[in-house]
């Protein structure tokens, strides 16, 4: 039997509450409001935000390492210098976007990769703008 799944839109952890079994109430109780929420920090547009996993070293000098999870915000407009996810030759790739007079370039943060130039802006298909990289040192759960 397949395990039924359910996902919430924001995945917010539950609000903090304390349960005092006996004795005096915790003096901090009335100050506790809400746990810090990583979604609040990393996800500005939940409906337009997706996560992807990197593979390869083309953005190494931008601080993106192979295996990192990227936060991709489709709601944002890509500007010159944005780190973007783009579709190139049927694959998703993460690169810097460079805007010149009448051409667009995808530039790696690694001298071993050559820039990819798009003479006509229409050819470049952008998936979204990368707003953060999550680099885990210890895998928590999956």
């Amino acid at each position, binding site marked *: 039997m397949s395990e039924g799944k359910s996902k919430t*839109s924001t995945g917010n952890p539950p609000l903090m509450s304390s349960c005092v079994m006996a004795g005096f109430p915790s003096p901090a109780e009335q100050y506790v409001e809400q746990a810090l929420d990583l979604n609040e920090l990393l996800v500005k547009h939940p*409906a*337009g935000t997706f996560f992807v996993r990197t593979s390869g070293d083309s953005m190494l000098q931008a601080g993106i390492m192979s295996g990192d999870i990227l936060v991709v915000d489709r709601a944002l407009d890509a500007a010159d210098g944005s780190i973007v996810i783009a579709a190139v030759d049927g694959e*998703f790739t993460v690169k810097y976007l460079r805007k010149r007079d009448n051409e667009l370039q995808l530039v790696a943060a690694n001298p071993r990769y050559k820039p990819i130039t798009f003479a006509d802006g229409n050819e470049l298909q952008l998936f979204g703008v990368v707003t953060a990289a999550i680099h885990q040192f210890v895998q928590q759960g999956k």
Partner: protein
Amino acid sequence: MFALVDCNNFYVSCERVFDLSLVNKPVAILSNNDGCVISRSGELKTLGIKMGVPYFQLKPLIKAHGIEIRSSNYELYGDLSKRVMTVLGDFSPDVEPYSIDEAFLSLSLPDGAGYFAYGQQIRRRIMKWVGIPVGVGIAPTRTLAKIANHIAKKLPEGVFVMPEDNTALLAQLPVEDVWGIGHRLADKLNRLGINTAGQLKLQDDAFIRRQFNVCVARTVIELNGTPALEMDSIGEPSKSISCSRSFGHPVIDLRDLTEAVAVYTSTAATKLRKENQKAAGANVYFQYYPEYGNQALEGGITGTTVIFDFPTGDTGTMLKKIAAVLPGIFIEGRRYKKAGVVFYGLESAAAVQQDIFSYAEASRRDKLYEAVDKINKQFGRKALFQLAEGVLRPWAMKRDHLSPNYTTDWTQIPEVK
């Protein structure tokens, strides 16, 4: 004014957001258990492949035409649907999700404001944020918005605002294409000489009430530009079955919301069983008011996707799953105005192989297990064990061509180089 926003080839479009190899190719999405075609890309339609074609009939054509096949990925479709609805919440304080891929919006723009431009904004935003192409039809009533939407989908701009004088337009529309007029009603209308939407619009109210019923009478009123339909009065068998209602007063308590969702689930599940259908899953929505306190908060929609363990029409089974996820989308301090449940992944109950089990209500289950015991007695202990194991196995959906759960499972998110 009402806008009907309807996603184009929704399931195919969802797959294409993440799978670049599907772009510009004929794509077919299969129903539960890979039974038949339930969503087609434009390229597949061009090949003349109809909705509902069984998979085995499609198989011989796959190679010759380079057709791409995918099983229904309800986790993905549910998640993207929820995102579409959330974006729509930014455009209207009143969004009625009507099925997994369409919603009505009430719009009241200031006089002289451009509804066409607004429709384009909606369309662009959903494309940019979620990657799903939609058509937008805008008109003074839901019935006319539905017609406007059909027209919008054929236009490159994807948006159509019903003109004030729609005589010529409705004169071309066969009456059976009017929302809520099924084949049987259309036959009867045709016999009375009413063949087009334009003719139906001109009918006398009393005559229609006498000949038909109040629902058809409401449709006539709607065709004339006066809203007369409530969401729940629409009895059309749809791709998806839903129930959503606004609350009498703002609701702030999770228990009340859970209760409301239970009622709506039960109502929608009754509809489902009445149409002899089962659902693979549900999207559940809360709509909330903006707040103007110390901390101003925007109003909007929040939702979640529930996948049942197997396609079901059993209210109890559904509620167990649904109630469990509501705390995850509830935010303390919000004032909620509306809740809704939309089932999707519908299939005919007769098509579900293990019917004797899932139909069974408590008392019937008892009888069933009596039978199981009898079989056990006759065939030995191992038979009982196998049967017990087997109770669950056939329920698991067959999805041989399933794409990854790109948005709902950390181990399956897309890879970028």
